[in-house]
Every structure is written in C-alpha cells, then in structure tokens.
C-alpha cells in the first residue's frame, strides 16, 4: 500500500471502514497502481480477500505486492487470499472442456448470459467460516477489472447485476468491502462502458479517478488523482467531498502533491 495514499484517504489498515463500495476508474492512463494499493492495504489490514484478477497473471501482482510489502503467495497459502486468474482460466476453459461449472464459463458460450457462476465463486470464497480458527477482519472483493468483462461479451447490465449481488452479500450482509476498477473510455463512444461507469458511480461510496494530464505526457507528473467521497455513512457529515492531487509513481511509492495553479511551475 502507499502510505501517502492512506493519508489522502484518511485511513489506516487498522481502522479501515466496512460495508463500502470503492470504485477505481482510469481515463487516458493506467490506474492499476490503485489496484495494487488496495490489494496490499486489505491484506495488511488482515482482511480475507477474494481477488478476481482478469488482466494480468498472478506472478505480476505478486512481484508488485512484494515491493509494497505483502507476499501474495504466503497470503494464498494461509487462506487469506483467494485468487481467480482470468488469463490462465480462459485457456483452461477454452481448450480443456470442464464438466463442473467454472466461474468464467461464459467464455465458451456464444451469448454470454449472466455472471452467476462468478458470483457463486465469490460467495463461496468469502463466506465467513464459523469455526473461528483464524478470524479475518472482514471480507473484501477486489476486481481487476470490470471493463474486461465487457470486452469478453458480457453485457453491462449483467456486470451491474453482478456488482449489485456482490454488494448485497459482501457489503450489507457480511459488512465487507468491494473494490472494482473500470476503464473510462472517454471520447471513444463506448456506450456499454459509459452505462457501467455511470451505474457504478451512483452506487459507490468512494471514487478514485486517475486521469492523464490534459496537456499530455509529462515526465514529472504522471497524472491527476481525483478522490470523491459520496454517500457518507453518517448522515451528519457533509455530502460529496472531493479532492484533486497530481501524482508521480515511483518504484515502490507514489508522490502526491496539490495541483499548482501556475501553468509553468515545476
């Protein structure tokens, strides 16, 4: 996790809030550093994490996780982390037909129906076990990323249904958290992506949006991070607070600063 980002979000692994849907969004840049942050954050917070990794292989996340101070292989062996590797599973489903239902079995079908097998997988992975041997703090579902599901033929409504079911079970029932990454296609006129993004933005408690700079590529500033707090859990706090920072990603950390008002300052 990035301590700087924790400061901006005003959270610590010990005091992480529960029952929240966090939406990670990127536009014209790569927002995967946010996924790495939340993955390591919740593992350090001693939560049980179900990670649906659809974009990269497990070893990629593991190597970055080690830079951020967590070992995914150890967490997986301990039972704290359950990973669904999309790329590897896709090859297995496609070339070696399975008898039992697989979470990603919609890949084999011509019309991808719904994501019910995937939801069943998440539910089985995060179901709180009552034997009480290793009490994890709260269940967390992390998805990287939902836009890939659109590319694989799942409709945006089916993806929204999946998130709704997960929220009802993980957030409401089990007081856990859901974090998902969605790409904002910007001016690419991707209607399905817009439907998904708008639908999720409405439901989220916290939105982190990584944007590329409007002025183009810059060596010192990789992008702009907008943090939007929505739907506060306490009715007394003011609604919809938002902050904007500019960030630069370094090898093991991230450097954030306030956006400068002068166009020529460094």
């Amino acid at each position, binding site marked *: 996790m990035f301590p700087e980002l924790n400061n901006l979000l005003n959270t610590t692994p010990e005091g992480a809030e529960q029952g929240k849907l966090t939406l990670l969004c990127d536009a014209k840049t*790569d927002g*995967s*550093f946010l996924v*790495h942050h939340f993955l390591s954050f919740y593992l350090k917070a001693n939560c049980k994490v179900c990670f649906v990794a659809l974009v*990269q*292989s497990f*070893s*990629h996340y593991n*190597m*970055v996780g080690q*830079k951020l101070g967590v070992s995914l292989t150890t967490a997986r062996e301990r039972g704290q982390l359950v990973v669904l590797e*999309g*790329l*590897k*599973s*896709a*090859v297995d489903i*496609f*070339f070696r037909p399975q008898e039992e239902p697989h979470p990603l079995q919609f*890949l*084999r*079908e*011509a*019309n*991808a129906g719904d994501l019910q097998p995937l939801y069943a997988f998440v539910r089985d992975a995060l179901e709180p076990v009552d034997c009480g041997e290793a009490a994890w703090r709260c269940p967390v579902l992390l998805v990287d990323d939902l*836009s*890939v599901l*659109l*590319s*694989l*033929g799942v409709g945006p409504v089916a993806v929204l249904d999946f998130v709704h079911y997960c929220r009802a079970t993980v957030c409401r029932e089990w007081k856990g958290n859901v974090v998902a990454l969605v*790409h904002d*296609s910007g001016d*690419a*006129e*991707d*209607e*399905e*992506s817009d439907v998904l993004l708008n639908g999720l933005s409405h439901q989220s408690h916290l939105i982190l949006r990584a944007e590329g700079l409007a002025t183009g*590529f810059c*060596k010192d500033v990789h992008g702009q991070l907008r943090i939007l707090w929505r739907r506060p859990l306490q009715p007394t706090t003011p609604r919809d607070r938002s902050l904007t920072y500019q960030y630069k*990603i*370094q*090898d*093991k950390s991230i450097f954030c600063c306030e956006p400068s008002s002068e166009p020529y300052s460094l």
Partner: protein
Amino acid sequence: MAAAGTCGTGTRSTGSMVAAASTNNVTSFQRRGPRASGADSGCSRLVSIAGTRPSVRNGQLLVSTGLPALDQLLGGGLAVGTVLLIEEDKYNIYSPLLFKYFLAEGIVSGHALLVASAKEDPADILQKLPAPLIDDSYKKECDEDVCSHKMEPDIKMKIAWRYQLLPKMEAGPVSSSRFGHYYDISKRIPQELIETSKWHGFFLPEKISSAFNVESCSLTPGYMKLLQFIQNIIYKEGFDGSNPQKKQKNILRIGIQNLGSPLWGDDICCTENCDTSHSLTKFLYILRGLLRTSLSACIITMPTHLIQNKAVIARVTNLSDTVVGLESFIGSEKETNPLYKDYHGLIHIRQIPRLNNLIYDISDVKDLAFKLKKKLFTIESCMDVRVGL
C-alpha cells in the same frame, strides 16, 4: 578470438548437452555465461536462450523486434509472453516491414516461428524476409572461427566467401547470442537460413474446410481454428514446459497478419454494429492467456483504421500489451508539410506494459518519425527538424 575460444571449451565441457541437442545444430553453439556450467545449468538455461536478454529494469526476458531502434523505444525489447500490436498504416505499406523484421530476427536467432495469414501463404511470406546485414567486425570473427575450427567440409567457395559464411552465421556463436540485428530490405533472406529454421504456417483458406460446422462459441471460425492451431503447437513443441523431454528451451515467435480484416471472416471492419463484435476481443484475451503461460512472443498487425467502432479500438488496445501505431504521410496533408519532408510517416508508441512493476521505461522523445531508405527502415525523432525552422 575470445569468442571462439569460450565457445570451444563450452561445447567440450557440456558434452552430454551437445549429444542430446545434436539434432538442433543451433543449440550446440550456445554461448554460456560464466556461472552456467554443470549443476547450475538448470536455471541458467532459461537465461541463455539464444536471442534473448533479461530486462535491465525487472529481469523480464526480452526478445528483439528486429529493429534495434524500436527495441530501444520499447524499453529494451519485447517481453516474452506479451503481444505487440501494430496498428497498420493506411495503405499497409510499412507495417508488413515491421512484421518481416520480427520474423527475420526469429530466424537469425534460431527461434521457432508460427506465421498466420489469411491473405498470403506463410511460405511466401518467409521467402520475402530481408537478409541480415553482415558488417565488418562480424566478418572478421567468422573468418577466424573458420580457421580455428577447420571443420567446414565445403572449402570450394574460396572466392565467394560471403556465401560460405551465411549458413554458418545461423549456427555461429556470435550471431545467435547477439541481441538485435540489422537487415537489408533490398535483399532476400538466404534460402539456407529458412530451411534450417523451424517454422509453422497457418494459411486460413487451407485450414477452413468448405463445410464448417458452426461452433457454439462466439468466435468466428477463423479465429477459433487459429487459436487451436497455436495451442497445439505450443503444447506439442513444449513451449509451455509441458514436455519434460525437451532439454533445450526455445522461444516461439508468432506473427499474425491483418487480424480483424474481412479476410479472417470478421466483419468488424465493415459495419459499426456487427454480430461478431466480441470475437476479436475474446480472441486477443485467450491469445494473451496462451502467451503468458508459454515461452512465446507475438506480433499482430491490425488495420485499426478500418474499424468503424471506436470503442472496439479502445478495447483492443486495453487487451494488448504493447501497441505501436504507424501513420504514413501518403495521401495526407502532412505529405507537403516541410517539417516532415525527409520522412515517410510517424510512429506512435501508444502503450507500453508495466510488467511485474509499477513503472516502466518510457522514452522521453514523443515525436517519432520513420523513413524507409533503400536498405533500411529507420526511426528518428523529428524534433531536431523543428529547431532548424
């Protein structure tokens, strides 16, 4: 010559290795690192695959794209297990060159090739590959190689020594362990190099039978067959580590030409809302899954300028690892622009993957232009020209 000396002792000490791999004459001339001998040869074997080198940043295994200038822009080369997507220029004049460089580099480095095309027979594509350039230092080393070993039986070609050297170049230690070569586009690759290389061809009209059964999956039949073909080769030849008998690891270079064009049976370039709109993206996803679990690298050229639906282009970019776009000046107003008068087009590095890392090597130079000279394809920054004006 030091190179020839280490090569000689290397082959003698790892005698069993040579015997086992004697069928593939490239492997016996593998140059070993100083620590790689005996017990350690297991893990070092991966590093010492011909034509690869580890990345400076994260130790990721890289292969050359065939254009050293492009390797530099991509942070050292193309990572093994990833997809390089070339967005074709408007009249498809320059993107086939990058495709051919990639394949030619594979032949020279001794990698296995898999060439897929719906338009041209892969055997014809291989015939038209550019010839590798032999520079002077190369020639000297190969000369001394011949003198010290004295094992070439055909000494009849004393005058035409260049031709005698060419087959040796493929098996020679200097060439196969070098990363990135230069090619002469005006000449064809020598026939001997093609014949000694291991290649598999996929020509769509031959593979699609007239009475095809409609698959239940939403992939078009052409993509389906191609995926099965690739998976078959990877599995049979052991590129995914499934065949433990294979002692010597090698890289499989996959080249797919004009993916997404109507010749592949995909109408994504013809209409905006097509029935098979997810076929291409699903294909890319599963292909990437195959590549990640095997020792292979893939180049795909795609006519993205023909795709009607911009959303699909964005999705295709997200599903690929490295994306390079070519924009030629032919027929555009940039042709008469004095800024670009020395160049034939612009090259855009649209995406570079962050693999096993939070950051990546990105070149500071953004305005890159390419130029096709008589023998070479060069990439330069066109910023210098601007200063002159």
